[in-house]
């Protein structure tokens, strides 16, 4: 299971960050924030090369000693980030992908809500 899930706006500010309740939340804020470096770099290197449709799923961004950080960028440059523990060997790439897909669907549903203004902080109930 993921320890942290984040939705980051196009302008790189956090729309939504959720961590496991007993974890040090701030540490994950930093982890998610620093992973934006890698995401930005990937987006730039892709957009420079081709105009083709980009793969939304960016895969493993970078491994730290304790966590693995995965990234996903929508076409409107909304970034999804999932952090899982390095020791957790049960989650495979495919499962990460499907998690992102679900997250993307949930985000799309939320944007369709007429009471949501684009760019506002996401409140989860």
């Amino acid at each position, binding site marked *: 299971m993921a320890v942290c899930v984040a939705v980051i*706006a196009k*302008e*790189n*500010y*956090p729309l939504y*960050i959720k961590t496991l309740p007993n974890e040090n*939340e*701030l540490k994950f*804020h*930093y982890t998610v*924030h*620093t992973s*934006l*470096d*890698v995401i930005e*770099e990937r987006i730039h290197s892709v957009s420079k090369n081709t105009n083709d449709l980009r793969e939304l799923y960016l895969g493993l*961004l*970078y491994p*730290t*000693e304790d966590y693995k950080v995965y990234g996903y960028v929508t076409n409107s440059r909304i970034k999804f980030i999932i952090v899982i523990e390095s020791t957790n060997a049960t989650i495979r790439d495919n499962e990460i992908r499907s998690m992102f897909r679900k997250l993307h669907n949930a985000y799309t549903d939320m944007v369709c809500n007429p009471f949501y*203004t*684009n*760019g*506002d902080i996401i409140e989860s109930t």
Partner: protein
Amino acid sequence: MLSGLSCLLFRLENAFYELAQAYYHHESRVVKAHRDHLNKTTHALLFVRHQFKVAFYNELKQDSHTALKHYRQAYLHLHELRITDYNLLEIKTNSCIVNFKICKLCFEHNTPLDAISQFRRHVDIYKSKIGTADLAFEHSAWMSKQFAVFGDLFEEAIRAGLTAIQTQHPGFYYQEAARYAIARKQLCRGLCPAELKYPASDPLAEADKMEYYGQRPWRQGHQSLEAPSVQKEREGIQALQYRECQVDHSWLVIPLLSSAIAQFKKYKSPRMKRYLVVQMGEEYYHAKDYSKALALLGRVTWEYRSERWWSILTNILQLSLRCAYLVMSFEEYVTVSIELMGRYAQVPREEKIRIQMNLHKIFQDEVPEPEHGCEHDSVEKGRALWTTISAGGKSRSPIVVEMNSITAFVECKACFTADSFLCESPVTVKLGLHSFAPMPIRFSQLSVRFSNEAYNQFGIVVDENAVDDPIESTSYLKPGQTLWHTFQFIVEQDDVDCNLSIAGVDLVLGSLEGCCATLRWTDGGGDAIVHPFATQVHRKKVALNADFSVVSWDVLPSNYSTHISPREANLDVQLLQKGPALVNEFYLMTVSITNTEVAQISNVRTSISVVTAVADAVATAQPNTFLYEDIDLPCSQLISMPLLEELKPNQKVDNVAYVRCVDSGARLMCIQVSYQIPIDISGKMSMCNCMKEITSSIEVCEPFNITVSLTNMKFEKIEKVQLGEAFLSRMEVKCLSPWPVALQGSSLNLAKLVKFADEESLSQLTDVSLKQNDCAVEFRCLLSSGQTPSEIDIGSYSIEWRRVQNGAAVPFASTTVSLPTVEAEPIPLSLHVDMPAYGHMKAVLPLTYLLHNQTPFVQDMEIAMESSEAFMLSGHKQLFFRILPDSQHILRYNLFPLFPGYVTLPRLRVNMVRYSGVLDQLLSSVVPTHIFIKVCMVL
């Protein structure tokens, strides 16, 4: 000589090299031979030792691939050993050395991936092998060392030419090293009590002269699974813990962090770098270097703020606040407090209240409460600093807080209520202050600064009430409420037609006499970083004149700049003219100004200029319109009329000007009238500048259509002229002007190769007056004087004219057309006929033909004179003769007319033998065919 020496050196080197290699080879063989006698169960330790020895000899032998192989085996053997708490340190120490060797050789072999995977394996194996719980810090120290050393190796390889990528570079290893170093510090804090004493028996005495790496000094050479003496073991641990306490951990962490920062900077990871800077700041904080921590944290807050990661920002600010308290940095303390009280700080309300109370205390010259979580002795020092300052009685120097760069608890939005103001009406500025502080707060002064400092005096509000007085007044801000101020003032005349903007807003916190902080916004506040980017775009814009008190604070407009427009001019200006104007004439225009203002105006300045359309300006580089203030004065593109000192209401003045256009088409004239009028602005009379500008169009047309054609002497149209032969130029002037035009005369300005056939040629169009569509025609007799056949330019024709109605007041204008160029051709023979204009019946009519040979050759000629019924004729009927070059032959005939009237002359046929057939056509244009014979009245 030199090459000989180097050759010898080379050979000597080789000799030594071979010797050394042979030696190392031999040594490794010896070790290998020894190894064959070992068995795995009893000599497991020696297996490691022997493989390492072999590998090391091979390395010295410069056979690094074999060396790597043996190092790897040594590592495997090491891994097979049984690990207990008592030999763990020794195993880790040795595996550390072997791992270092393997990684180093892998990097040297340019297989960095092997090095990285070896290192990962190494770390994974030993990560969980902590060993004795009391010495857990030793493990962290060891892990930190592993990462730091690998980072160094990696960096060295990069310096030798390896390329690293953003997600795999030494920075990560330095970062991990720093993380373990921090963990070591925390473990040390937990495990080593401060009151620990170094044991008297000194178990670490022999630590420097041990035979084997990684063994405990108090039980060297001991290989059993149990400790030999529990007492000694305990003392040894105590001694190690005591030593650990002496280590300054922060100074281990900080260099590692700064190495990592350098790497992340190099590999384009600004956010990771920023995170490490924060960690470094925290470490300085732990090392009690608070001012350095404050400086480091201050460097990164801006980025977190602009990217709007509020939780991280809050965390940094809280730490900064502690540092600022501990070093008593007044300015930082106030700035950070202001930001932590703001709406984006993720701080509980109670904490915000506490911060606000502290802020309040500061401005009362009291000592603020210490922040939580600080070290006890540092708090004491910090408190002492604050106390001495406040007890000293002298106020701190006022500070300025730049509000545009922080997300403060008070927000400001200033706005002009319109995009432009007339100079006679007061300018209105609305300024809203909105507080997000948890408690009400009072400011002592609010001032708005304008781009023109003269108006600053109108934008000041001072609150005289005491800071802790809860009376509602002009600068008492309640939480979540907006306080509106409206400022009004009249602009000065110098600022008319200029932009006026809000340069800044200053809000003074604390008493003006005592300790105070000025919160300064540049522009009118409403900072962009505060607002979500998207909402700014999507939400509806609020009109400037709306009632702001009902609008939500976030969507309020901010309008920092306005235009001061001049007063509406009340003047009737007209350009009187009777169009169309004619090309080249001095065209009279009258500018009529009527004062329709209520008061007398003064300093009336009028100017006329030609408006050049942008497209035209490029096409016609040369001006085609000239303005004259008077006919005698030089022309210009802009003329000014004489200054009128004053003009009473309903008084009217006319000014005249002339315009001359050199081609036809419409012209746009711009007339500007500026004047001053005294007006009453809220009880004060002041002179106000006004300006009226009108544009008026003038149609310009050509006065004449002049057509020029050439004819021969018989008035027949010709296309070519003959050299040396006279011809006529026919000028037809058709009047197009709707006004009658008087022609004063005409003139021909002939080119070089053309001259008048007569001595003087007078104009036939003198004092002629033409109405529209009238035509005047004149002929001029010309002669081409050239020698060679060519296109000749005849010259130009100009007529002097003026409108009949203008009379003598206006000088003559002149219209010039250029005459056509014609082809001039040479003729071999020219023929002149000399005869009277008419003859009388039965009287002698002498007729002379003069033939001129124009060629440079002798010409054979034959002529024949045909007989005619109308004449009797004497002279040669038929003749052959020669004409020398450039000489003449004269033929004389006497004719005797028999009939009156317009009769046919006897026809002369001339034939040149050399140019047979050519002459007939040539001569027919010259030789007259008829003559008028009068009846003789005498008979």
